[in-house]
């Protein structure tokens, strides 16, 4: 063995590289332990009895027959909830177990623990619940007393008053949040060119592959340990503490393997239930939802009804936007207030608009609760405003690229909230780059690559090609004054004479690669290649939510700050050992900026380990003014644009997306492979919303709670992508990075719809597009 004396100027596996993710091999070879794989000797299995009705009063619950079944250890109702009977992310209004009334189909009513999962399910089915069925409120327009969905210029105050009269889903009325944006003079202004449109977004599901699951283990101190797949350990614990009437320190959460999240794990599912059963029986209790149950066990994407009016001058320059956005939040609050915040503040898109009048409502109905899903608020609005931009382009004789570049925001633009964009906003550049990309070849010869795919519906008959463009805007991180922070504990020590770093946070890896990027940051900051990322748990402070594209920014920022603290301590030791000076740590060496390499990092650790725990916050934001929407509400914006090329069988109404091209500014590509992965995955999820993904709800009941009929794109549906990644640093963020995960989901949907419109000539107003929409003209004779 030879010892290299060459001094490397970089530490391998640091930021900007794409090291192999530690969980990657296990996941692709089937060895990774997901939360549904948890096992403990002597454990019981939990099951949940859910309401079959969207709305009903509970007149009685008889658990007797279930308790008599052999193997059953506990059957619990709302009477057994030790503490607060309701919980929630922002507003506690969702019952742990239903009492008095059920407000959506699938609401948990009774939980059971038994020695076998089948026994638990059988026992749950034996519970007798008497319901007095009440007519559900299922139309969000009706919920706010506005069945006609009157035009944009309506006086919005009227709605609030009317909503009081309509049988409320909740005692305080059916409006969760009404956010107004008033910018310029939206009421008086007129324009030469006016385009209007009504748009609708169906209910998408996150459809993660790993169902809700976890294992609760009662502890000797009267507390409980919970191993669970979630998105934010500490906010789970806060809600559990209230429901279980236990101090937070007696509830210890450890992250189990997460099989996808996309927002669906932000709300509690089985966490409190499993702990109640474990604490009652004194035995470990595992709960795993079935695929069907999972559709009832988590929130969905808010369906939206939108009405837009865009006014422009004859050149196509925007003069005003007026819009109403109605978001159906379903039975409980969940994240609806934040979804309203995003939809309203981002509702005109990444465009300079001098006059904006926007009203956005989130409402209660007896439909399934809706909450967080990738890009929330921004996804719905983008379908509306991008459809409008295409309409406006046609009205003034511009191309889709021209209308967007003409009106694009840029650094320094003032948004309708009055907030100034104070970092690069390369919207026009995204469009120009998309426009410059070559288009794919003509209609494919392989019939499997035509609309209908392997189902052999066309050999070219009826197939038309179309191209569409869209661009989107998303806020990164928690907005509107939320104290958004993360905590990192960083320790460096000798392990077998080698310097080794341990990074410990509570930030959740959901498959996006956070574990990898935390290690990359530590390597770059501390010049040490051996970095271990500890399992996320509540033994360290909150990492905040894995949502809002925020973890690389916020927990990444915390890890960097933790490393900086450790580095300062090491420099003190270096100064003591090598004399005063300025140092840096690279590839295991300590370098003096004057003298070059002066020693090994290992030698600084002979005195023992160094450890620091830091909390790190992004710059503060402000709440929005309720009446005008003014406020510096957002931390950062991210921009992404798509060009979609589609083939449409215009006779059958079938679609194949031929190519998706994407340009996104990520500020700094911390891990280029992971960035591409997010762009591909986000684009696919947007494709799903465009052409197939919808939870169909009729009279408050789900009609397709399975993967048989809730369709997601397969590899035959998701085309190859051309991707360009821009790295225009944001001066306010760690390394200049921008959140990556959500933006590609936002623009891919409207780009695909635009392409389908171009191919078919059909004025599509709703996603997902169904064949019936495309051939509607042929059907009504």
């Amino acid at each position: 063995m030879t010892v290299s004396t060459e001094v490397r100027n970089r530490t391998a596996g640091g930021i900007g590289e794409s090291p192999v993710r530690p969980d990657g091999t296990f996941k692709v070879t089937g060895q990774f332990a997901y939360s549904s794989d948890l096992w403990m000797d002597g454990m019981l299995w939990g099951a949940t009895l859910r309401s079959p009705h969207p709305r009903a009063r509970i007149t009685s619950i008889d658990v007797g027959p279930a308790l008599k079944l052999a193997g059953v250890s506990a059957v619990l109702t709302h009477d057994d909830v030790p503490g607060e009977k309701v919980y929630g992310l922002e507003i506690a209004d969702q019952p742990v177990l239903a009492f008095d009334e059920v407000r959506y189909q699938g609401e948990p009513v009774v939980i059971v623990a038994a020695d076998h999962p089948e026994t638990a399910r059988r026992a749950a089915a034996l519970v007798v619940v008497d319901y007095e069925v009440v007519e559900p409120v299922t139309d969000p327009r009706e919920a706010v007393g506005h069945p006609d969905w009157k035009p944009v210029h309506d006086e919005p105050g009227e709605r609030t008053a009317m909503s009081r009269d309509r049988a409320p889903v909740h005692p305080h009325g059916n409006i969760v949040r009404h956010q107004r944006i008033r910018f310029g003079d939206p009421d008086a202004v007129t324009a030469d060119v006016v385009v209007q449109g009504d748009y609708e977004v169906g209910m998408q599901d996150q459809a993660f592959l790993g169902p809700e699951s976890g294992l609760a283990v009662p502890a000797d101190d009267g507390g409980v340990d919970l191993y669970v797949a979630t998105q934010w350990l500490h906010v789970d614990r806060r809600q559990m503490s209230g429901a279980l009437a236990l101090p937070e320190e007696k509830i210890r959460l450890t992250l189990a393997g997460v099989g996808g999240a996309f927002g669906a794990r932000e709300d509690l599912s089985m966490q409190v239930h499993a702990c109640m059963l474990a604490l009652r029986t004194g035995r470990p209790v595992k709960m795993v939802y079935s695929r069907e149950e999972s559709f009832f066990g988590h929130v969905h994407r808010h369906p939206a009804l939108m009405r837009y009016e865009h006014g422009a001058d004859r050149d196509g320059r925007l003069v005003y936007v007026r819009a109403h956005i109605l978001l159906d939040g379903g039975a409980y609050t969940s994240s609806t207030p934040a979804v309203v915040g995003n939809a309203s503040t981002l509702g005109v898109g990444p465009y300079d608009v001098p006059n904006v009048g926007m009203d956005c409502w989130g409402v209660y109905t007896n439909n399934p609760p809706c909450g967080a899903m990738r890009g929330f608020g921004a996804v719905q609005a983008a379908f509306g405003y991008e459809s409008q931009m295409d309409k406006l382009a046609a009205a003034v004789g511009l191309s889709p690229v021209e209308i967007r570049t003409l009106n694009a925001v840029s650094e320094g633009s003032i948004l309708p909230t009055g907030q100034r964009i104070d970092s690069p906003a390369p919207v026009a550049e995204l469009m120009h780059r998309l426009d410059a990309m070559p288009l794919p070849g003509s209609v494919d010869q392989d019939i499997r690559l035509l609309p209908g795919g392997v189902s052999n519906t066309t050999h070219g008959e009826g197939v038309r090609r179309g191209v569409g463009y869209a661009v989107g805007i998303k806020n990164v991180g928690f907005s509107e004054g939320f104290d958004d922070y993360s905590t990192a504990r960083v320790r460096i020590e000798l392990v077998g004479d080698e310097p080794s770093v341990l990074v410990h946070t509570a930030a959740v890896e959901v498959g996006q690669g956070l574990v990898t990027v935390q290690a990359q940051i530590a390597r770059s900051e501390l010049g040490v290649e051996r970095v271990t990322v500890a399992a996320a748990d509540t033994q360290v402070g909150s990492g905040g939510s894995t949502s809002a594209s925020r973890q690389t920014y916020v927990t990444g920022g915390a890890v960097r700050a933790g490393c900086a603290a450790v580095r300062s301590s090491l420099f003190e030791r270096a100064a003591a050992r090598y004399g005063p000076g300025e140092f840096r740590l690279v590839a295991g060496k300590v370098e003096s900026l004057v003298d070059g390499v002066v020693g090994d990092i290992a030698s600084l650790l002979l005195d023992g380990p160094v450890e620091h725990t830091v909390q790190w916050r992004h710059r503060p934001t402000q709440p929005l003014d309720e009446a005008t929407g003014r406020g510096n509400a957002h931390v950062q914006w991210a921009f992404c644009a798509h060009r979609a090329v589609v083939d449409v069988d215009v006779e059958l109404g079938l679609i194949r997306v031929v190519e998706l091209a994407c340009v996104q500014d990520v500020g700094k590509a911390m891990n280029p492979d992971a960035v591409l992965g997010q762009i591909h995955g986000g684009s696919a999820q947007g494709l799903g919303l465009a052409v197939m993904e919808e939870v169909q709800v009729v009279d408050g009941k789900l009609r397709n709670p399975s993967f048989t009929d809730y369709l997601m794109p397969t590899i035959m549906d998701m085309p190859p992508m051309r991707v360009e990644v821009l790295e225009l640093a944001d001066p306010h963020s760690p390394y200049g990075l921008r959140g990556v995960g959500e933006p590609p989901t936002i623009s891919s949907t409207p780009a695909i719809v635009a392409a389908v419109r171009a191919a078919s000539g059909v004025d599509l107003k709703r996603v997902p597009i169904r064949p019936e929409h495309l051939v509607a003209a042929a059907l009504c004779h």
Partner: protein
Amino acid sequence: MEFFRPTSLAEACQLKSEHPDAVPLCGGTDVMVDINFDRRRPDALLDLTGVRELYEWSRYDSHVRVGAAVPYTTIIKELSADAPGLAIASRTVGSPQIRNRGSVGGNLGSASPAGDALPPLLAVDAVVETVSATNRRRIPIHEFFLGPKRNALQPDELIAAVHAPVAGGPQQFAKVGTRNAMVIAVCSFSLALHPDTGRVGTGIGSAAPTPLAATQAEDFLSAELADRWTGPAELPDDVVRRFGELVAGAASPIDDVRGTADYRRHALAILARRTLTWTWAEHIRRAQ
């Protein structure tokens, strides 16, 4: 729940006669889904995966006999020439994993109107061979489907095989789904030209309580083709169009989560026109 795993057809028949409620299980792509969703809870399962003879196919007297358990993957690989309609339909079934497990016997047993293999069997007048401890029957496919998910099997009977004539002319199958792979039919259509007998056969899927043949459309087209089989030329548009209308008219679809009745009729007319155009073009090519 009892679980039987016979290793011969005779043993399977014996078990079925002793336990007529036992649900035959082979690929499991329908039965296991039903059990997982708690839609049915059979007292006994009869696992047929140990019965080798069900996995064999053979050719005799210009017919093929396809064992009930022959997976779709094998049909695609080995029967594309003899049973092209069935092979094309097999390619549209589920995912590669499902095609490795699923079989025609399962489609017949489930008797779902959405069974992808069923329209091409109707189009070629296939015959279902059933077997019991005491009897062997041959049931014409047109008499096999009695209602939604109901077939002509007796409680003690198993499906042994399906018989189809070796293709004497072009055959096609097309299915509409809202995804480009791995999708249950919104509606489907199969067409077989039989130049040797001067007839055509059809099969419609997912557009009525059972899979069914469009007999009026068959009669119309057979008559139109009577003088055209030899020295064939392109078909007049009005013939193609009328055939499509008659196929659509034969269906009695419903509105459901996968599509509307109106759309299904509309799509069937198009599938009928297109498959006729494709098969007739192929007939012209062969005649040249």
